């Protein structure tokens, strides 16, 4: 999958799914630069967990690959792959490539 595919087919729909569960009507900004983690993040910690799980679910449905995005490497990385939608998409592309080659 290309980065654009990952953003549009995995991350953005998952963001809409999360937005629908938040209190009150909320529209979460969906751009590659949108910050997901740390200062200026659009999500709190529980919503970020929900996003990661929702994307994992979409990957399983689309590809049948059982991947765990919150793995050892992601959680111990100095630069979090969950920083922005763009870094998240790049990280997903890498995980998918590795899973396909396994």
């Amino acid at each position: 999958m290309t980065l654009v595919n990952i953003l549009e087919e995995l991350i953005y729909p998952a963001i809409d799914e999360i937005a629908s569960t938040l209190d009150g009507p909320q529209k979460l900004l969906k751009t590659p630069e949108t910050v997901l983690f740390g200062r200026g993040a659009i999500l709190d910690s529980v919503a970020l967990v929900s996003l990661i799980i929702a994307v994992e679910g979409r990957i399983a449905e689309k590809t049948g690959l059982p991947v765990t995005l919150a793995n050892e490497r992601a959680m111990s990385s100095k630069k979090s792959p969950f920083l922005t939608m763009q870094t998240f998409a790049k990280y997903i592309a890498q995980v998918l490539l590795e899973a396909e080659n396994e």
Partner: protein
Amino acid sequence: MSERPPLVTLITGSRKGIGRHLAEHYVRSGHVVIGVSRSPADWSLSGYEHIAADVSDEAAVLRLFGHIRKKFGGLSHLINNAGVASMNHTLTTPLQSVRKVFDTNVVGTFLFCREAAKLMKPSHFGRIVNLATVATPLKLEGEAVYAASKAAVVTLTHIMAKEFAPFGITVNALGPTPTDTDLIRAVSEEKLKALLGKQAIPRMARLEDISNAVDFFLKPESEFITGQVLYLGGV
């Protein structure tokens, strides 16, 4: 009118003993039951599917949950029953036994809870029941490793109950007294008598005592019951 989808119940350690009883009990109650154990089951039942997997092998666990997602689209209940005991004095307990007990009882419970919650979250409903033991509150000599592993299961239960509450998932634990299963076959009659004497009701647990308590945790009406540990027999 469309039929309501069946409740899907996953039970670990279902090949024999308490796990098998629970599998048969929930099939009789109309659930679709998926059972897991290291070895294939030597019995079968309509409405029951057995999968051979090591509960502490992450890759195998991910494959198992991938199969459940594909076949059923979600999961209603998880009963973490798989357990290994090591009844031995600390001074004569090999490290390998410690690792084996913690792998099955703690790592296995953790992995199944984590992956089950992911499958339960989209429907905003889920029930998780972890099997604990009275050996933990009774602080039984000769069961240091087993009791410590189940103390970890109790802590996982308390904290996961808080972490999963926003997703409509309850997490509780059930601590049976000695039950007539393979797990306690190595315990001497004298020791067993002394152990039962510490209970308010000094008898072994029946399998029905266990399924009765699990039924309570799984009920839709038990949505306000979470983070609890229920010990049988008045411990």
